[in-house]
């Protein structure tokens, strides 16, 4: 570098790092969460005058204060993780599937329909039917935008987003069709007496099956993305469609196949929501999880196990929110704020894992 150019040298430069070892990576990530908690704490204290440690303790108690609370939190975590697992292959392929919300609802509608119309069947076959049909419904819902993308290269972000609104309207239609009591505009708890189509208790816990199902899906998805030919094709298409074509991969086939899979898992999430948690269907059954899960999938870099961890963090913050509203007189906006700050810091930590800042003086020395 000549002396002339050194004058123009910016004060701070962003330099790409080489591959970081996993030890420091994890330290940076944990550090970012700790820093975000401190920032939130300062904010809480400045705005409300509350002791932030007490607020965090209350949140923790709200999420894990009793066995029942812990399982409710875990149920939420599994739900979110399931959607994220569904989204992972699509996003890894750089297919912006914003339509998980709709795919969940469609799976939920089908599950609720089975619960209402096939309630004479024994639990096990009924659950199998619900699982299969809701997966199929979710897959079909995702197939439409996938085919349009593969054949005519339509914008999948808009397409999948619009499909959400169609799904919400369909849900409203079925809610008014199935409403109970009539005129209430709610379906109420389905099969409250017979519990037909409900997840059975396993080991004395209602949500054991949720855990088994989602953890199994997580492992399968991890293997699929990491060790199979399909998974490799997804990665190649995601990195460069031209490379994929050059390597003889049929891009449109991969897009359609991957979206079928993605939609199917999201449909299963709808099954999980209806059969494994609420036992009813409403337009809020998906509850924004289809969007939250995008963050989960990206932050985890599509690694199933990180997805479980991040889903746990978000479910914990969600469960804790109700408790701080109750005990600390902070309403749910306060926890939205905390979630926002924590996510911001986690995102920022990714930046510092990939890049480092070089100040002018250092730059000279390096040069």
């Amino acid at each position, binding site marked *: 570098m000549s002396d002339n150019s050194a004058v123009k040298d910016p004060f701070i430069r962003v330099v*790409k790092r080489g591959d970081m070892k996993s030890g420091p990576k994890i330290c940076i990530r944990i550090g970012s969460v700790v820093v975000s908690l401190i920032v939130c704490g300062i904010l809480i204290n400045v705005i409300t005058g509350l002791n932030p440690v007490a607020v965090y303790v209350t949140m923790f108690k709200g999420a894990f204060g*009793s066995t*029942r*609370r812990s399982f*409710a939190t875990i149920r939420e975590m599994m739900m979110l993780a399931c959607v994220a697992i569904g989204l992972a292959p699509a996003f890894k392929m750089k297919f*912006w599937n914003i339509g998980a919300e709709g795919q969940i609802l469609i799976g939920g509608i089908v599950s609720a329909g089975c619960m209402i119309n096939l309630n004479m069947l024994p639990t096990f076959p009924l659950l199998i039917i619900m699982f299969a049909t809701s997966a199929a419904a979710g897959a079909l819902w995702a197939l439409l935008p996938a085919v349009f993308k593969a054949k005519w290269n339509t914008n999948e972000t808009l397409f999948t987003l619009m499909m959400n609104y169609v799904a919400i309207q369909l849900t409203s239609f079925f809610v*008014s069709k199935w409403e109970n*009591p*009539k*005129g*209430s*505009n*709610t379906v*109420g*708890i389905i099969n*409250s007496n017979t519990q037909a189509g409900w997840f059975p208790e396993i080991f004395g816990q209602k949500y054991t099956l949720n855990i088994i199902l989602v953890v199994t899906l997580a492992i399968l998805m991890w293997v699929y993305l990491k060790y199979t030919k399909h998974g490799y094709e997804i990665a190649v298409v995601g*990195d460069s469609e031209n490379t994929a074509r050059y390597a003889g991969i049929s891009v449109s086939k991969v897009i359609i196949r991957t979206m079928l899979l993605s939609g199917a898992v999201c449909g299963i999430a709808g099954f999980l929501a209806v059969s494994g*948690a*609420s*036992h*009813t269907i*409403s337009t*809020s*059954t998906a*509850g*924004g999880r289809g*969007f*939250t899960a*995008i*963050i989960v999938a*990206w*932050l985890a870099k599509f690694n199933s196990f990180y997805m479980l961890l991040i889903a746990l963090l978000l479910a914990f913050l969600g469960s804790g929110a*109700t408790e701080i*509203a*109750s005990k600390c007189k902070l*309403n*749910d*906006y306060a926890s*939205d704020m905390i979630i*926002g700050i924590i*996510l*911001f810091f986690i*995102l920022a930590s*990714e*930046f510092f894992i*990939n890049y480092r800042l070089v100040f002018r003086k250092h730059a000279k020395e390096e040069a």
Partner: protein
Amino acid sequence: MKKKIISMALAAITAFSLAACSGDTAPTTPAGTDAGDGEQATEAGTEAVTPAEGVTGDASEVKIGVILVGDENEGYTYAHIDGVKKAAEAVGIPADNILWKYSIPEDESCYDAAIDLVDQGCTAVFSNSYGHQSFMQKAAEEEPDVQFVSMTGDTAAMSGLDNFSNAFTNIYEARYVSGIVAGMKIAELVDAGELSDANFDADGNVKIGYVGAYPYAEVVSGYTAFYLGVKSVYDKVSMEVIYTNSWFDIAAEGEAANSLMADGCVVIGQHADSTGAPTAVQSALDSGKVAYSVGYNVDMLGVAPTAALTSATNNWSVYYTEAFKDVVNGEKIPTDWAKGYTEDAVAITTLGESCAAGTQEKVDEAIAAIKDGSLHVFDTDTFTVDGAKVDSALVDMDGDFENDDEEAVSDGYFHESELRAAPSFYLRIDGITELTAE
């Protein structure tokens, strides 16, 4: 590298969209805060609280759980919070023994919240939204030692559970009285010759409008009571009803009020929770139109200082006080509770400055007549259905949604909320037109 930046940007965008989404689903809105002149609305309730007579148990040991669909920023929930606090004070339950669950959606979170309250030692759990009902009932089945109350619900009697109850106020009485306020105003406007031809229908009736939420009995009962109240003062009126299909939708309610006013309606009543309609009426009045508003839940004078006449409102502390006493005394909360003016469980808010002279006297007279039983809101001499007097109306009591079970009409009036707490008046009477029905 570029892709990484793009992906991070996307994740950041989705983070924002997440925030936006959760904003959408939250039951509170900033406008709710505007509307929340709740202190005024519930002022009527302060004197109604009775001292802690009839409390035999140890109130300081009792823990009560309250599940709310919103928080204090929303008028409807604010009124419940206020009622619970006053009742706890009246019965002597320490404030710390009331455990709150705010902003609980109408899904399994309600069940989780109810069970969690039981785990924390509550012996009675109340929820304030209709959609909570089936989750409360589920919790009641599993926790037979704890009493559960689904306010505004309707399935307790047929659930067969000893520990599950419903409660509602006789809000139709207050709506009738608010109708009287509107009727006085209409009479004044007609006498002063302020109405134009557009304000009369083909038969020479003055047109009034009503913004309803859903075409349910609760709403039908309310608008019919309001209409009959107007009619008791000024007989020649006809009413048009528009449904918004939402309990809280400021824009839709404002729009409905505007189209009713465009059609010539002089007074706009409402059974929806926002300030949309009164705000629209106020701006129409300011632009020179003749239009006035009768609100619901909260005093609307804040948003419609000259257009608002009054609002029909609930005083929940009356119910909570009775129910809390039962809990403290270890007695069963009544399965169906519905009371009105006799216990001051309903009221109308302070009369606006635009009210006609002599309104207060007329209102007091009607309230006294309702209290002493000489006035029945749904007196069958005052209305007709398809041109004929009604001498029989069966209502549904067994939950099959067919109105075929018990006779509600006797002694010359429809016995509203006597067979069950939730409103059941479903007759569409002459003089009222539903413009948008599902």
